[in-house]
């Protein structure tokens, strides 16, 4: 089962290491991880995507709470959320394929942010599914290089963590 969890932490050195090592210790592989500061500069927010059984995740959440710098842990499992990822994709763009690629990009409301004589660099934002789908379509041209950010998530509506 894939879980997306948000962890609010004190913005202090070492917090990331403490958090990440907990997952490693319990045999959880982190699929993606995004960290940034929040509206409160003393507090950082991590969005962590992991796969594993529910019971183990509950244990990890309790262990996270034992860290002095962890303020809140939220498992977004049964909740409506907005989730976004950003990807930069450098794809082969030979003369004959350019039109087709540009069309695909516009369908996905992605952007071409850099152009060379033989490649495009495409920027896409959206849910993980959307990013996956675009990557799937671009594969046929040959992806030269790619980087995705970790997922970031906020609850829908007025609710806050």
């Amino acid at each position, binding site marked *: 089962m894939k879980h997306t969890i948000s962890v609010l932490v004190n913005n202090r*050195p*070492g917090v990331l290491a*403490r958090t990440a090592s907990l997952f490693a*210790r319990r045999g959880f592989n982190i699929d993606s991880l995004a960290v940034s500061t929040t509206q409160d500069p003393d507090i950082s927010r991590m969005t962590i995507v992991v796969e594993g059984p529910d019971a183990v995740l509950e*244990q990890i959440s309790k262990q996270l709470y*034992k*860290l*002095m710098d962890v303020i809140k842990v939220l498992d977004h499992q049964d909740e409506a959320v907005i989730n976004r990822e950003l990807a930069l994709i450098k794809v082969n763009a030979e003369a004959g394929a350019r039109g087709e690629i540009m069309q695909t990009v516009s369908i996905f409301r992605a952007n071409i942010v850099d152009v060379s004589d033989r490649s495009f660099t495409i920027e896409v934002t959206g849910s993980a599914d959307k990013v996956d789908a675009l990557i799937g379509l671009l594969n046929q041209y040959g992806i030269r290089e790619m980087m995705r950010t970790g997922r970031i998530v906020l609850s829908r509506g007025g609710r806050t963590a």
Partner: protein
Amino acid sequence: MKMTGAQALIECLRREGVQVIFGYPGGAMLPIYDELYDVADIRHILVRHEQGAAHAADGYARAGGGVGVCMATSGPGATNLVTGIATAYMDSVPIVAVTGQVPTFAIGKDSFQEVDITGITLPITKHNYLITKAEDIPGTVKEAFYIARSGRPGPVLIDFPRDMQQAEIEFEYPESVELPGYRPTTTGHPKMIERAAELLDSARRPAIYGGGGVNSSDAQAELLALAERIDAAVTMTLMGKGGFPEDHELCLGMPGMHGTAYANYALHEADVILAVGTRFDDRVTGKLDMFARNAKFIHIDIDPAEIGKNVVPALPIVGDVKSVLAELLGRVARKRHPEWRKTIDEWKKQYPMRWKGDGLKPQFIVREIHRATKGDAIIVTEVGQNQMWAAQWYPCKRSHQFLSSGGLGTMGYGFPAAIGAQVACPNQVVWDIAGDGSIQMNIQEMATAVANKIPVKIAVLNNGYLGMVRQWQTMFFKNRLSHTDINVGTPDFVKLVEAYGGVGMRVANESEVAPAIEKAMALKDRPCLIDFIIARDENVMPMVPAGGTVDEMLVD
């Protein structure tokens, strides 16, 4: 008031009520040690190896002295503390370790004696700090002590760069700590307590399985009253030893791998088990899904992460053991379970604790120490067979009386921890029940005991083996004794102790045991070691093989 970082540290320790520091100096601690030179109201005990400092602080805390404090210099000094910190972490013991560090400007440059001790101790401390701003010193020390002793206690480390020790600050001690991410739940949920009371009322074969949490929350009186009221069989783990008086008719001794047969049968047959301040360790449960499979569990613990970690209880109660037990006591009905008692008494008759055969037996020696000390001594153990014999044959009366490295199983823990315990309790008799292997792991602390006139008594149960490992080899590895015979090379302990300035004795016959113990008891100003040459092939029994079930228990 203006003061240096080093002065600030000492002032903070004073405010926290610290009376003793176990430590060892070095370059990165020079400013602090220079300050200690003039301090009269805090005693510094110079150990001979930093591991000894950490264990001594641990023993001091476990014996009831409050948060234990140890100090070491940067680099190797700090890494030498690691085993002691991990030991305290596994057994939830409140200690604060202060380490020197290279100056802040030299950190990260592989400077001389630089080591990332906060990184190294990250998974074995409850929390740790690297001081990077001198004005943070008072707040950090205050927090460290608060974290170490509150909630589920544990070790906290403060890494103290040398320039921070010399920096000048305006000293102001904060009144309170503010930790938004740390609010231990101490009172149990009333609904859950209500339901737990109902479940206990409905029990026909109730048992209590108590752990270290009973001792760390000082809940002995509450546990006793509750057990008597509901007429439950009580079994206390190695860590819980003393949390329930062992001479009480309801007490079945220790459960688990080397527990009594009747404690294990009682857990196996119980219909409701109240698990109190305990963590369902594999040394107790054996094969987890077969453990106490007829029982519904009520699990009380201050650490929410312990609940459901190994066993999913019918009723979880997060809270301080003492407070929850007191609440529970007010709600349970008074019950008698004559049938259940009868069953247990039959097990007791059928599978009594005993030893067989000739020669000088370790069990006999522990019994003799028990007799000579009237069951009142603080008993500290090393690790191995000696530890199990001490646990099995020295029944304890009270919390903080039995000190042993349970979670980590650290050979070498006993002697320095006994020193710490003796410093915390100068008017008590302290015995370290030791093995010939373990005692050699921190024997250098004999110098500390001699120099400080600490009259710890050591009983070496000398079998010439790394006995517990030898026992496993005998039982499970066709008696192929690979590297467990340590007879050759083991020093003459009597001469060794005498060389340090302590008192040494050797005993090889039963008739010499009591007189030697008497002689040791008479010594008040120096350590003493008795080298008991025991029957070397003795095994610890009963035994449930690792990962096994009660049905596989070997009785003798």
